[in-house]
């Protein structure tokens, strides 16, 4: 019987490990061009509208950064978490809680706290994300529940919590029964970068929350590569038995990983409600928490790769919108691109570690002895 099998390579090439995201991106673009052609578009024109046009204006660049910033922030937290084999899939829900906590501060205290409102919101948002993540941490560390399921399901709970609040106690009484809160005051909003007198940013929505992300990138790298707790998390992810032997607490690892992921997602939530959204409403579900899973994977869980991956994913979003407007293609095309990218990435990664070999063995083949 002819067949194929995967053989582990003796030594995976270091070069190819580094190149495999590049290769995945190249293949995605190649197949993307083919899809555009199949849809009856001039591939090069479509390529221009998808990848170049969105970033050809100052406004386009600012929109790109506006989307990439929360993706990067969440992606950093998830990269650290996934290194420890803690599979937090519920960053989206932790982001919602960040938004909810920040909104709570904003609508109750923006009149009285003045300039202290926004810093309080940032702290509250991080705490909110951490509290939501800690529910998953309790279930995994104390009750041995699967964190993937728990964190994912809690996302839907968090979404319902938003709905309850904006349909109920936090609804703007002057909103004609629309499910949304009052608009935040300037005290509760991140100042626009344009307000600092940079002319070329005039009219863009980019705000100072991007500095949170810019600070988080080196911090995440430093934590993962230079601190002992970061090392312990990595050992726990690579070889749990070695971590137990060395005396590293696996419960502690789950807690640290979940709390870092939750805090990052919570901050991303603040940057949204106190940024472009400016309120809490029931339609706020940007899926950044889920897209950040792809961002962390694409970055090979390396903190310095996360910003690049976040920029790329943000570009896919924007490109989808542009081709919808310019070429009347469905926006779903950006999800096709996301899917292609993830698939090519995982595929190339497999081929870095394994090679495909043709086999011609009997059906009851070399079972145990060949391993």
């Amino acid at each position, binding site marked *: 019987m002819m067949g194929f099998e995967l053989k582990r390579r003796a030594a995976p090439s270091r070069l190819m490990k580094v190149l495999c995201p590049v290769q995945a991106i190249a293949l995605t673009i190649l197949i993307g061009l083919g899809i555009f052609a199949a849809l009856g578009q001039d591939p090069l024109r479509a390529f221009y509208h998808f990848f170049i046009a969105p970033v050809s204006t100052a406004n386009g660049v600012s929109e790109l950064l506006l989307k990439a910033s929360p993706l990067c922030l969440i992606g950093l937290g998830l990269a650290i978490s996934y290194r420890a084999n803690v599979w937090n899939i519920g960053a989206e829900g932790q982001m919602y809680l960040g938004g909810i906590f920040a909104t709570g501060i904003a609508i109750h205290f923006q009149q009285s706290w003045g300039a202290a409102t926004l810093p309080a919101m940032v702290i509250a948002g991080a705490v909110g994300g951490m509290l939501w993540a800690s529910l998953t941490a309790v279930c995994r560390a104390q009750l041995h529940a699967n964190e993937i399921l728990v964190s994912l399901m809690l996302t839907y709970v968090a979404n319902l919590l938003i709905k309850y609040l904006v349909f109920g106690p936090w609804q703007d009484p002057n909103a004609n029964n629309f499910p949304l809160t009052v608009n935040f005051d300037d005290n509760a909003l991140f100042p626009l970068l344009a307000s600092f007198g940079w002319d070329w940013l005039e009219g863009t929505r980019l705000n100072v929350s991007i500095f949170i992300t810019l600070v988080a990138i080196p911090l995440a790298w430093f934590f993962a590569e230079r601190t002992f707790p970061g*090392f312990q998390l990595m*050992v726990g992810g690579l070889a749990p038995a070695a971590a137990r*032997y060395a005396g590293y607490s696996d419960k502690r690892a789950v807690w640290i990983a979940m709390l870092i992921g939750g805090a990052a997602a919570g901050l991303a939530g603040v940057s949204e409600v106190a940024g472009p959204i400016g309120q809490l409403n029931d339609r706020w579900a940007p899926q950044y928490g889920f897209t950040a899973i792809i961002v962390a994977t694409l970055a090979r869980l390396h903190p310095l790769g996360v910003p690049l991956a976040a920029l790329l994913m943000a570009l896919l979003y924007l490109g989808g919108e542009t081709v919808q407007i310019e070429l009347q293609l469905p926006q779903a095309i950006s999800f096709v691109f996301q899917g292609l990218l993830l698939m090519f990435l995982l595929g190339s990664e497999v081929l870095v570690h394994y090679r495909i070999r043709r086999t011609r063995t009997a059906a009851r083949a070399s079972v145990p002895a060949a391993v």
Partner: protein
Amino acid sequence: MKAETPPADGAAAAVSAQGDGPPLLRLSGIAKSYAAVRALDGVDLEVRAGETHAVLGENGAGKSTLMKVIYGAVQPDAGTIEWEGVPVSITAPTEARLRGIAMVFQHFALFESSTVVENVALALPEKVALKKLAERIADVSARYGLPVNPYQYVHRLSVGERQRVEIVRCLLQTPRLLIMDEPTSVLTPQAVDQLFETLRRLAAEGTAIVYVSHKLEEIRRLCDRATIIRQGKVVGHTDPRRETEGRLAELMIGRTFPHTQRRPKSEGAIALEVVGLDVPADGPFGKPLKSISFRLHAGEVLGIAGISGNGQAELLAALLGTTLSPSDAIFLTGVPVGHIGAARRRAAGLAFVPEERLGVGAVPELSLVQNALLTAYQRGMVRHGLIRRSDAAGYAERCIKDYDVRCAGPLAPAGSLSGGNLQKFIVGREIGQAPRVLVLGQPTWGVDVAATALIRQRIIDMAADGIGVLVVSEDLGEILEICDRVAVLAGGRLSPVRDVHATNAEEIGRWMAGGFPEKSDQAEAAA
């Protein structure tokens, strides 16, 4: 039993067992390279029916690769294989088994989540009812003195028990050529005798046996011919019965054989005391520890002999602190530590070399520097939560230098080292932490002769420096060579502790099978 031999070879099987016809198996000019490493470089080997042929060589010499070539698990880059005078290519283990070639692997190839009988069924060419097969396993294991419960899950089995499954699996297939890769390292002396009895009987029935080992004494007892391999090349043939062990060792490692030097024992204060330790079984097929008590003095090596699966895993986990006990069950230099975990016991002066190297003692993906940090982090490599990389690198370099660890440098991933070199690194890392008590599980299992000698010497030197050393080992020869006192762990109970000069392999072998007197508390208190 012979009816199971495939008919395709029936005609050729008529060749006389010991005669002058073509040998059963002939390899010529076999070569195999992995990336930059030449594992085999033009190896010739001839095996006749009915002979017991030793393949002798250090770990990394290429023995295992050569055996995998014969077994079809590895395809050679060059060279020919003749089976009964006919050139053949063995492209898969299935083909090897159809020709009647069976192999007991050094690193076991068993599915952990399946039972023993399921694992054996997977290796058989034909479909069989599991119930019948279980009976046959019970039969064979009883006949050859290899006790195995067919319905146990493999992940619950110790290293020693897994090897027994492998041997039984091969014997079930009535092999014409049986490859044994380091088969005796985990057997009691009586079981080794029994196994040799079995092998001699098989040989007398015409089965060829290729016996891979670096245990020279066994090779001299068992084998008719020896082929010696060094660095992928055949460096000699000899009749092992006519050579001394020293001469064989020289042939094997290419220089004089290092001997461990014992030093006069200086007995000090109690370094480690275990008092009435009860530990529940580690899973449904583990062994609960029942009221274990012993004292380890500073300056001595105490050996715990016995076959894995008799509570060894439970005892090691309880000593390391991955299993917690009542605080007053374990004392480290007089301080109760039963209730505290591994990190704090380490801080209190415990160093520990685990039985498993890859994945426990070291993280294969990480560099030696990072693996130094793994457990030696309390030696000034971490300050305010930050890693001091130069200190970790310096520590790793010292381990590499002092323990003669062959590697590409301190940044080489641990997984790239051979078993012996990695074990030297781990032992060096643990000893380097200046412990008060050093506990080692199977310190030289699967380690080459030169590394074994070095590790054993360091263990003895540690004790001479006033450290209490506890060695848990299945290798009785090792226990007798390096330990001052010895006890046996069997069935979850600990035998009386004997001075090593007041006992012998026969007595300990009997104890390993569970036949030791109940220890009286007075005797232990007097010791």
